[in-house]
Structures are given as C-alpha cells and as structure tokens.
C-alpha cells in the first residue's frame, strides 16, 4: 500500500510510519513529489545558544525556590517603603545569579566545543558524481557517505557496497553496546556491485524504512533498486544498517546511504536528554526552605496582627512626638495592612539564607577538587586521575543505596586470558606460553620434557632457550589444540597492512600485527592461546581454514558451521582434513557436551571442569567426532534439507544438530579467565558491608555473566541463585516470579539469595508484574541482569529509583551502552576504560578503575555528606539566630508604624556575607569526623549517614530549636542588661538603641562562630585562621566602620557605637556570660550523647584518639601535632582510667595493614564482620 502512495507523491512528512530515502537524493522526476524533512546531522548536547542563554538561564535559575523568593523580596523592597534598602537583598541576589550563570555558561561552552568537534569532523560524501569532503554536520538523509577503515560512521547508514566483492564489511560496536567482537554486515547484492563513485552515480534506488527508534538491534526496511527499468525489492534488516558511533574494521572502505542523521540516529536516541540531577541534600534543603518560609510568613502575619491590635488605641498609634502624615492617615486600611505585612516580610526575610546557595555552590565546586587530587584515585598505569564533571552531586556519593554496575570493562579488565586446560584427563597450566602438566614446574629438574608443546618460529628459537621438544607428545594433545584452533568463528584483522584483504598473502610472512576478532572473547583467547602454543590459526578464506602447526601449514576445508545458540550452548564445525577425512569439532558448556560424549576421559574431565569453575575460570569442553564417508553424506543431506526448509526451519535445524552432535569423543576442556580488575572482590564486599546493594547489569550472555559474578564475589558459592530467564510470556513470567518468591520465603533467613534476570524476561516482568519483581529483588542481596539493552539498563535504574523507598542509585560503566543508565541514576560514574570516552563524558564522575569506587563512596562521599549536611543545618541555625532578635525587638517597639530594625543595615548585609561565611565554608571543605583510612576499613560507618540521616527532620528541628534558644538568650540577655535602665559606663553616660543592637549582634557573631567551632572536629590551621579570624574581623571591621564619618552615608548612626560599647566593662562581662550560656547546654548534650549513645562514627573517633592515627599517618606530621595528639590521647586515657594500652595496641595491629604505605583496600577486620 505505501508503495503506491509513494508513487503518487503523497507522503506527509511526519505522520507516516516510514521514511522514504532516495539514494543520492535522486527524487522522482515525475509527479509532484513533496520531500520529507529530516533532521540534519548535527549532534547537539549543549543546552543554550548565545541568543537564548540569558533568558533561558535566568528562567532556570529563578525556578529555584530561593532565587525566586529573593527576586520577589527585592521587588517588594523596590515598591514599598521598607526598613531596609533594596540593595541589602538585591546585591546578594545579583551576585548569586551571576556566579551561577557564569558557571553554567562555561560548562555549556565546553559542550559546544565538544559538539563542534564532532559536527565538524571531515567526511566524504558522494555529490554530483564525485567524492566531496565535507563536514559531518552537512550530511543529509539520502547522501551516500564513504567511510574508510577504522573510521566511525558519521550517521546511521544502510550499507550499499564495500571494497569486497560480496559486499560485506566488519564493524565493532564497542562504543555502542560494549561488545568488542567483529560483526559482519551485509549489503544487498544489487548494490554491492556499485563499488566506485561512478557506478554509485548510476544507482537508482529507494530505501523505505521505519521512523527512527532507539532500539539498536531493530531495523525494518526495504530497498527498491531500479535496474534496467525493473524494480527489485529487497528487505533490509539490522545486518544492513551501520550505526553511527560504530567503527569500520578490517574493510578498506564502504559506501552507505544515510538514513537516520544527527539527533535521529540510534546512538543519539539512546542518550537520554540531560536532565539536571538534584541531590537528596538539595531536596531536603528545599523542604527546609519551605518550612522557613512558613516560619517567616507566620512571624510576619503575627507581627502585622499585633501591630493592629496595638494601633487600636490612638495613644500608641500616634503619640504627639511621632505624628503621621496626612497621606498615611488617609490611605486605605487594606492597602496599609498589605504594605505593613510586606514590610515585616522584608524585615524578616533574612531568615531564608540567600548565601546558603552561594556557599553550597562554592563548597561543591571547591570541594570537588579533592576527588581529582586524590592519589588513591589515581591510576598509575594509565596515568589517569579521577575526574569530576558535576560537582552538584558530591554529597550524593555518601547516600548511595544501590550500585548498578556494568560488567565488561568495569568489573573486568575486558581481557580474556587462557589459563588452564585438561587434555585427555591430564591437567595443564599455561606458564609463559607453555603448557605444563599440573604438579610440574617450568624448570623441572629432571628435564623430562615437561613442556610438551611449544611453538617457536625460527627467529624466536634462540631467544627462548627452551628444553622443550617441539613435537606433540601424543595424538590427543595435537588433536585438542587443533580442535581449539579450528572450532570457532574468529576473524582476523591485519593491522597496519594496507594490502587487499586477502589473509593468505600473509600466510608465510606471518605478520605479528595479526589480530583476532571474535564474537566471543573466549574464542579469541583460546585461539590466541593455541597460537602461543604452536598451533596458529592463520585465517579463513571462503571455505578454507588454514592453521600452522610448528610452522607447517595445514589447510582444512570448512564444510559446515553449526552455529552457537543459547539453548544448545555449544557450537560445532565440520571440516575436511587435508587427508580428506571429515571430522566434527564441538565446543561448548560442559553440560551441553559431556552427556553426548561416549569416549575419552569423561569422568576426569568432569572433575577438572569443576575445579576450573571453582577457580572462577570460564570453562568450555572440546570434543570431536570422525565421520565415515557414508555418515557424512547423511549429515550433509540432512543439514541441507533443514537449512533450506521453508517451514519450521528452526526446529528442524535443532533436530539435525542434535543428530550430528552425538557419540562425541571427548578431547578435553579449557579454562579461560576473564581477568577481573584489581580488587573488585574487596570493593564489592566493602560496598556490601556499607549497606549498598550491588546489581550487575550486563549485555553479556547469561552463563558468562554468572561466572564473572561468581568470580568477582558478587555472587557467593553459598548463595541460593534464583533465575528468571528465558521467559516467553507474561503468565509464565508471573508464575516464575511467584515460584521464586516462595523459594526465598521457605528458605532460612540466613541464606543469601542472588537473582539472575535476562533482558527479555525483565521487560516482561516490568510490564505487568513490577511489584512482584521488586519484591523478589529486594529480598536478594545480589542481582544480576544479563542480556540488557542500553535503555533497559536505564529502565531498571528508573524502576528502583521510583520505587516507594526512593533509594539513591549509582550507575557505573565504561561504554556507550552504559550512558543512558549513567544518566538515569542519581549518580553516574564513568570508568575510563578502553571503550571510548562516551561514558566518561556523560558521567558525573569518572574514575580509572572500579576499585576506586570504594574510596569515592566510603571516604569522599562520607566527607562530602557530613560537610554539606552540617553546612545546611548550620546555615538555617545561624539565620534563625540572626533574625529572631529582630522579631523579638518588635515587641518592644509596638510593631511600630513602620517596622523597627535592631541592626544597622551594613551589619544586616554583611552578617551572612562576611562575618559568618568563611568558618562554615572552611569547615565544609576540610571537616573530617573520622580519618579516611578508618572510613575505608570500616565500611559500616557508611550506614551512619545513610538515608539522609543528618538532614532528617529531627536534626533539622534540633538545629532550628537551638537557633531560637540562642536568639532568645542573646536578646533577653542584652535586654536585661540594658533594660534595667542603668548606665553601663563608668562616666554615667547612657547607651542608645544602636548600642543595644550592636551588643546583640556582637554576642551573636561570637556565639554562632563558636557553635561551629564546637561542631568542628578537624582543626587545620585554616579552621583556626578563619574561626578566630572571623571574630577578629568583626571587631576590626566594627571599629573601622564606627570610627569614620562615612561621607556617602546619610546618617552616621553607627559612629563610635562599637568603641563606646567596648569601653564598658559590663558589656564585656555580658558578652562573655551570654556566649557561655548559649553553648553550655550544647556541650552537655554532646557529652552525654557521646558517652551514653555513641554512634559508630564517634566510637571510631575514640579509637583513633587512643592510637593517634591522625598523626602517625599524616604525611607531613608536625612534631608538635604529634605531641598534641598523644598528649590528648594520654589525657583521655587517664581521665577514663580504663584504656588498656595492650588493647589499644592490639586493635592497632589489627588494622595495621590499612595504615601502611600500601594504600590498599582493606581486608575486613573480624570485628567488623561480626557487627554487620
């Protein structure tokens, strides 16, 4: 139907389900064709342009509650007569907005730069009969693009032709889905012949395909080629589509027609649009702000009402000494009421701390440097340090409850390594490229030909002075190695050789640059291993496979490949030996091969395979079968029939395969190690002790994933593994879920469960049975999801994120396939691995190795969280302290006509900006409650801060209450001092209202600063400097401010106020006693809590103090610091009278390893284990 429509030239651009692409944009000449409109090939990751930056950025900034609030306050101040000038709130607001805009503008500029680099990359396009170089962004849908070897595809292309006659090419999609193998893509035969620009020019073809969608593995379309007036229609599938971001390998050049470009390419669709991530702390901050807004409104309304209550009596409203103007008398009551309310609002508005946002942003920005600076997060081999892309989420690192990790390249090095094999019942190990039977060492003293096989080319011979005899000891070994080197689907790529893609031209030269590409990394590792051992796979061309056994080339004719499938879990090849004999080699999982084996050392091999598996190796069993001529004929016939069958081809093939793969002769087994990254197991273990659940999400096969999961300690051997795989229907899936739920319900509570889910089952489970699935997941201590598409990974993350508990999630991965998950999670971490920089670019933090995650979360996350949580609480506290005396003062001036202010407006503006800003900033940059090593060696400390505990409503109330109490003490302390109406000076003179305000303010600045000093546990010289410096600065500033007649001020209210205040002895005594009274209950509370209900963090502090770790470990420990520490330690010991030195020493040695120079991730001290 739609074909017809197209010919009518009626193709509404966006409504249709398909898009029609005229190759080389040769639109039909006849008819009135309306071209469809497609996106251009620009990739846009930036948020702003020059034109919309200011409005858009301002809009986004004012969406923040606080910013909007201050804007309103500022406008109110401009409109009505208020006690404070508009500058007091306008200036800080302007400052905040500007700083944020500059920061965001800079970040966007970086994105623009990256985009331009991608969009400006040179590409070759066929235009008007010749190859034209242009920029990537200029590619339009329908353009024919030429891509050369090792280049990435600039758009989603349908392959037209390659330099190979059969029109195939190899690509890797590493940066898209993380798979490292070579994939073969095909062109349709009608276009494959158009290998040159001129022939492409004459090509008349139209591609029809679906509109863009995100699924990487789905593509449906058809191509209509007009040849000699005849239309040939061919179907197109994913094997014809070359995805943007994939890389051409092993093929000199290809031509393809662009079908999806720019933001419509599958790669771009797989990137979730960037939404700004907000940390949990910011969310609680917003809640607190709203509560404070409530307090503010309450105070303002109360003040307004009380004011009118007083004003009812004229003698209060308008005493003779303070008469109103006519205008005031006559203005409408409602208007007056509103303006009074607004005036009170403005007076109290400082209770909402505007500088909170600036300080938080500064703290995050500056604090994030510590991640990059951390030597423990620096990877020496690759010379990479940790990288911070967003500093907004620092504290979220301390709140993580779920970690979603990719497998390949994240947990593993992405390097398979052959380790052991079992041949004919004898176990061998590979040591330095030699196979050595178990129990013998390489340099066996008896020299009894321990290494049986070893290949050496003539040149290498002299280098390796080996005692080995270069022959096979027996037939079985030879057969085994040949089987391994032949039974696979490995491709060869000759790097740095630009000859035509004929592998056999190198057969004799034996290029060392030869590189294997395989659909499974295991195969690659195996073929590489046999190469080391002397049986080299040189290449396959058409039906011929060639291997070289100790330099002797042998050619095998490949008759059939019985492809791998997940049900059979094995694959086979049928080959014709040079001798003409026909043989089948099979390789597969032991459960898929051993039952069909009839001869060979079956039992011994089974034992060996189990041993390999226990070592965490990935095992494969190899077997063979020799066919007689008759047998082969039968096999060949049945295979041919099955393959050409039109109906039930799948089933028939399975049947034939089963017929062929039987009566096998067992040759042996292999053990391949997917090399885990360093210390993955320890990292996962400490994350688990920290109360973090680890989920592994991988695109890998079920078996592979489980085996890696086991070897990295994610799954334990003792774990009860629940499986939800290969579910085909909804009901089946639900049934299985229920079964699993029953299983963990019936098992004892001590059994740990691990869940394995595959992508298909997962999407079924998520569609209908989300609740049930979540239920099962929560009961599992480890979850493994395999066969996941990139967006599915993101979906899983979202599922957890949006579950009722709203846990904080962290996603970590290295490939482009992890990008959507990284962006979806609360915190996204990129691993700087081998698979490009995409993940790193889209992540919030990037680290070089998985093991760094432990320190990033347990130490940095802990620090950042504590710092910012205290920062937020303290800010609210200090602003309550600041504004409540203002409120109280209103009671003593009858909520006067216009609001009276207690403080001078300069003090009002500078309180948050100068007098109290630096100590908290320095605190929030340097505070360490516990030493980093202790944090890392005791992951359980992470639980102390989980669930945003320091910003819980209780703590918030405590701080607010404390603020109110302190404010009452300041105010009424000063009030009783001055309210007795007596002179406070030795010369009998009296103080005025400004002196009263200054006294309150002085007490407040000192108390608020000292309160933070009480909170500070880690006093570096900077803390001393800013804490005492702030108080000193306040005094110096006040002396200066009050010591000069300021020419630009209209009043000199503050002139000499401060000096007069300080000249009074009573004032000094009053300041002292008020400050002490404020802090006294707080100290008592702290002491009682610490001793009667210590948190584990506080316990660790004690241990630390006894041991003086802080000093011992510190790299540049001043001697006096050490003395101070040990003195303190001794003092504590003496006071407590129960610190047994022997015990302290013992626990010191327990954790000794963590304090040595080897900055290792700990092994867990036994006490810790028992605790959890």
């Amino acid at each position, binding site marked *: 139907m739609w074909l017809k429509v197209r010919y009518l030239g009626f193709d509404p651009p966006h409504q249709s389900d398909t898009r029609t692409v005229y190759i080389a944009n040769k639109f039909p000449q006849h008819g009135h064709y309306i071209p469809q409109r497609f996106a251009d090939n620009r990739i846009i990751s930036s948020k702003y342009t020059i034109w919309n930056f200011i409005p858009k950025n301002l809009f986004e900034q004012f969406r923040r509650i606080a910013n909007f609030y201050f804007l309103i306050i500022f406008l109110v101040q401009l409109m009505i007569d208020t006690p404070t000038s508009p500058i007091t709130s306008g200036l800080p607001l302007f400052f905040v907005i500007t700083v944020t805009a500059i920061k965001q503008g800079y970040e966007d500029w970086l994105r623009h730069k990256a985009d331009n680099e991608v969009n400006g990359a040179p590409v070759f396009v066929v235009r008007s009969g010749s190859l034209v170089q242009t920029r990537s962004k200029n590619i339009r849908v329908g353009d024919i693009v030429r891509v050369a070897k090792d280049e990435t595809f600039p758009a989603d292309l349908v392959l037209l032709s390659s330099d190979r006659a059969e029109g195939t090419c190899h690509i890797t999609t590493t940066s898209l889905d993380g798979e490292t193998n070579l994939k073969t893509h095909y062109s349709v035969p009608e276009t494959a012949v158009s290998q040159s620009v001129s022939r492409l020019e004459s090509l008349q073809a139209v591609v029809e395909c679906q509109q863009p969608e995100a699924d990487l593995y789905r593509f449906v379309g058809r191509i209509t080629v007009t040849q000699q007036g005849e239309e040939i229609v061919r179907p197109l599938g994913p094997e014809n589509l070359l995805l943007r971001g994939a890389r051409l390998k092993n093929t000199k050049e290809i031509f393809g027609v662009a079908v999806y470009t720019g933001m419509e390419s599958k790669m771009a669709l797989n990137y979730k649009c960037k939404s700004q991530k907000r940390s949990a702390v910011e969310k609680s901050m917003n809640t607190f702000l709203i509560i404070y807004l409530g307090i503010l409104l309450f105070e303002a309304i109360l003040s307004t009402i009380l004011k009118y209550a007083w004003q009812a009596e004229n003698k209060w409203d308008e005493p003779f000494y*303070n008469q109103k103007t006519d205008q005031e008398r006559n203005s409408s009551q409602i208007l007056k009421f509103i303006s009074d309310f607004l005036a009170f609002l403005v007076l109290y508005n400082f209770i909402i701390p505007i500088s909170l946002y600036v300080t938080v942003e500064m703290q995050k920005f500056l604090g994030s440097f510590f991640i990059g600076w951390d030597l423990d997060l620096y990877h020496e081999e690759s010379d990479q340090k940790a990288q911070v892309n967003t500093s907004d989420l620092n504290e979220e690192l301390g709140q993580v409850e779920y970690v979603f990790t990719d497998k390949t390249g994240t947990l593993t090095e992405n390097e398979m390594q052959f380790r052991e094999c079992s041949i004919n019942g004898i176990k061998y190990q590979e040591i330095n490229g030699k196979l050595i039977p178990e129990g013998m060492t390489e340099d066996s003293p008896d020299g009894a030909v321990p290494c049986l096989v070893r290949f050496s080319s003539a040149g290498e011979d002299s280098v390796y002075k080996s005692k080995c005899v270069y022959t096979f000891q027996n037939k079985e070994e030879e057969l085994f190695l040949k089987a391994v080197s032949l039974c696979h689907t490995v491709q060869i790529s000759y790097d740095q050789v630009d000859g035509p893609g004929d592998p056999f031209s190198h057969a004799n030269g034996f290029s060392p640059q030869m590189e294997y590409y395989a659909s499974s990394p295991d195969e690659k590792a195996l073929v590489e291993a046999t190469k080391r051992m002397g049986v080299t796979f040189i290449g396959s061309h058409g039906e011929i496979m060639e291997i070289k056994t100790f330099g002797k080339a042998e050619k095998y004719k490949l008759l059939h490949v019985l492809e791998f499938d997940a049900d059979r879990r094995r694959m086979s090849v049928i080959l014709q030996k040079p001798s003409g004999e026909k043989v089948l080699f099979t390789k597969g999982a032991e459960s898929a091969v051993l039952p069909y084996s009839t001869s060979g050392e079956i039992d011994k091999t089974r034992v060996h395979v189990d041993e390999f598996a226990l070592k965490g190796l990935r095992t494969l069993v190899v077997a063979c079968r020799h066919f007689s001529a008759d047998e082969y004929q039968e096999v060949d016939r049945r295979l041919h029939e099955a393959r050409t069958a039109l109906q039930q081809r799948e089933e028939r093939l399975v049947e034939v395969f089963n017929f062929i793969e039987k009566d096998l002769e067992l040759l042996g087994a292999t053990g391949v190690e997917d090399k885990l990254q360093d210390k993955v197991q320890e990292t996962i273990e400490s994350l688990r002790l920290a109360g973090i659940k680890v989920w592994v999400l991988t695109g890998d096969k079920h078996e592979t994933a489980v085996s890696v999961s086991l070897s990295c300690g994610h799954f334990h051997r003792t774990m009860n593994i629940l499986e939800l795989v290969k579910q085909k229907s909804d009901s089946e899936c639900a049934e299985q879920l229920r079964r699993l739920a029953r299983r963990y319900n019936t098992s004892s509570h001590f059994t740990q469960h691990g869940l394995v889910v595959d992508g298909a089952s997962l999407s079924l489970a998520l569609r209908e049975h989300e609740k049930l699935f979540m239920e099962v997941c929560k009961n599992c201590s480890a979850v493994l999801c395999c066969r996941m598409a990139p967006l599915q990974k993101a979906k899983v993350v979202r599922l957890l994120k949006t579950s009722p508990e709203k846990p904080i999630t962290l996603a970590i991965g290295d490939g482009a396939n992890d990008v959507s998950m990284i962006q979806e999670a609360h915190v996204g971490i990129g691993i700087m691995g081998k698979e490009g920089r995409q993940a790193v670019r889209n992540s919030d933090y990037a680290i070089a190795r998985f093991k760094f995650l432990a320190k990033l979360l347990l130490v940095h996350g802990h620090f950042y969280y504590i710092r910012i949580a205290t920062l937020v609480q303290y800010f609210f506290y200090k602003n309550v302290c600041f504004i409540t005396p203002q409120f109280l003062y209103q009671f003593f001036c009858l909520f006067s006509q216009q609001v*009276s202010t207690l403080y001078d407006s300069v003090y009002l503006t500078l309180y948050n900006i100068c007098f109290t800003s630096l100590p908290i900033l320095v605190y929030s940059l340097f505070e360490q409650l516990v030493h980093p090593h202790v944090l890392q060696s005791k992951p359980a400390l992470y639980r102390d801060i989980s669930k945003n505990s320091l910003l819980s409503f209780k703590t918030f109330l405590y701080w607010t209450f404390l603020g109110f109490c302190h404010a009452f003490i300041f105010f009424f302390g000063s009030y009783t001092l001055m309210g007795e109406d007596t002179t406070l000076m030795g010369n*009998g*003179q009296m103080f005025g209202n400004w002196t009263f305000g200054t006294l309150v303010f002085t007490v407040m600045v000192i108390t608020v600063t000292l309160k933070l000093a009480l909170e500070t546990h880690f006093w570096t010289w900077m803390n001393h400097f800013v804490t005492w410096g702030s108080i000193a600065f306040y005094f110096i500033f006040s002396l200066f401010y009050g010591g000069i007649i300021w020419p630009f001020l*209209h009043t000199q209210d503050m*002139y000499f106020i401060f000096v007069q205040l300080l000249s009074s002895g009573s004032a000094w005594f009053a300041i002292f006693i008020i400050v002490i009274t404020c802090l006294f209950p707080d100290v008592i509370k702290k002491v009682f809590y610490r001793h009667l209900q210590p948190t584990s963090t506080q316990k660790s502090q004690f241990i630390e103090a006894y041991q003086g770790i802080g000093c011992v470990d510190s790299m540049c420990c001043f001697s006096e610091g050490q003395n101070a520490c040990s003195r303190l330690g001794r003092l*504590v010991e003496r006071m407590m009278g129960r610190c047994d030195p022997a015990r302290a020493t013992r626990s010191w040695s327990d954790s000794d390893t963590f304090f040595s120079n080897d900055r290792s991730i700990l092994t867990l001290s036994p006490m810790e284990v028992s605790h959890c």
Partner: protein
Amino acid sequence: MKNEGEASEQPDNTAFTQQQLPAWQPILSAGIVIPGFLIIGLAFLGIGIGLFLTSQTIQVLEMDYTGVEKDSPCFQCTIQSVQNCTCEVTFSLSALFTGPVFFYYGLSNYFQNFRKYGVSKDYYQLTGDTQYFKSPRDVCFPYSHDSKNNPIVPCGAIANSMFNDTFELYQIINGTKKKVPLDGKGISWWTDFNIKYRNPSSVNGSFASAFDGTVKPINWPKAAYELDLTDPNNNGFLNQDFLVWMRRAALPQFRKLYRRITEGDYAGGLPAGNYSLTVHYNYPVLSFDGRKKLVFSNVSWMGGKNDFLGIAYLVVGSLCVVMSVVMLIVYAKFKFSDDDDA
C-alpha cells in the same frame, strides 16, 4: 616520585591535596568536660560574687514626678491649660550619697525606637551644612516645614520632641535653700559633641543669622541658637541636652543623663539631709500613658546598679559545677560504656 619533565596527570602528593593537613582533633569527652566545667564554674562563681558585691555598693534614688496621683506635688502641672508650671519635689537623704552623683531623668512608655521616629532627622543639617537648612531631607516629613512652608531647623520628629523639663536642686539647710550646682558638661558622648554634630558657622559674626530663613521646631519654645542663654557655647546643635536627647534609647523605658553633681561642696557627694527639687514641668507624657522619673545614682567601674550580671554569673557558675558533678556520678554509675566496640 615522578619525572620532572614528563607531563603527568598524577596529582600532587601534598598534605593539602590529600586532605591530610595536620590537624588538632579534639573530642568532647567527659574526661575533658568534667574538669573543664568545674574550673569554669568555680571561676564564674568568683566573678559573680565580685560583680554582685560591686553592684551592691551603688546607691540609687528614684522618684516619679509625673503627677498622676492627686496628692503628688506635680499634679497641678498635668492639667493641660497650665503654662510654665513649676512644682517642687522634696526628698531626704539619711546618709551621704557618695559622689560623683549622676542626675538622670527617665521616661517610660516612650518609644524612641520607632523606626519612622528614629530616621526623622537630617544628619547634614546637624553637621551645620546650611544647604540643608533651606531644604531638609524628606525623612523629616512631617516635621520638615511648618504650616507656612518654612523649613524647620533642626528638622524631624526627634528634635521636635526634645525633652524640655528643667530641674533645679536645693539642699535645705535649716530651712534655707542652698543651690546644689549641677554640671551640664560631659553628659553627652565625647564624639557626639566633638565630631559628629557641628554648628553652622556664624554669619557676620552672629550665630543666630546662620539660622536665617528657618523656623524652630514646632514644639520648641526657643530656637536652636537660644537653647542655653547662660552659655553661648552650649547652643545650637552642640547643646548637651540636645545631644543627649538625639541619642535615641533602645527600649520604651529609658533614662537620660541630665546633670552631674561634681562641683563645690557637693563634689564628694550629697550629704545627708533634706533636698528640694524644683521642676519646670513642660513635657506632656500622660497622653500616651507615659511616666517621668528623676534618678540620682553614683557609678562604679561597671556603671550603675546592675544586679543582673552578678546573678547571671552566679547561676551559670553553679550550673557548671552541678553539671560536672552530675556527669561524674553518671560516669561512675554507667562507666560510659563506649568501649564495647573494640
């Protein structure tokens, strides 16, 4: 550790970048707090006793002369129609009132802290800037111009409402009144008198001419340049009483220094005996339920009589001691079970 010439990503290994700055890590444990509280508590008790005793030595004499009650001496002055009312308040001292004695007047229910009131003055006028004599700043409104639109100097509500009762003190010795000399110097802040407030410079040798074209505040009986007819230097904006009044009080009940008794026979204090105070009663306070007071007081180094500080120190000091004892008991009883984790 790394090659100098090589550009390496390796972060610097300094105490700062590795967050390992040497640091003092105090822990608020009972071991420190118990003796600390004890010491602080004892010190505070000591200070408290000192302050309390000091405060006790100060003598204060306070009299309300508003005249609310019918039998009070100034009752007749509270009647609106009476002009230039004078009344006499008598008191007797049974012992020597040690000098120097400070003589205050006090007002209550009087809100000098209203914002509108507080800003209602023109600082530039008060520094003698005659430019602002012609056009007082808007903040003075409605006390900036009189009904004929002449500018008021000094403008504003504060100046306009200046306290204008005056007092004369006599000791009655054998029925005769002996005037006690009152010293009006040095009752305002030194900086106010010497720096902050300035008179306009005289025009043609006449101080009054500087005020040409302006009118006195509405409530004032005399212009600013006539405030003290006895002392030409105590006029204009540098009049001591004016300066004292202009320093607004913080709270609705306040005292202001009126005079000091430092001269002649009374330099050592007021001897025991009977005294009479003549009050020139001008200032109305009853309209807003206010009260007027007279206060005689002497001072110590810490100012006037103020028991608050001494009591506060005693209370906090004893609380500290009590808490340290409580903590000690709790500690002894529960052994502060913080060592169970090792």
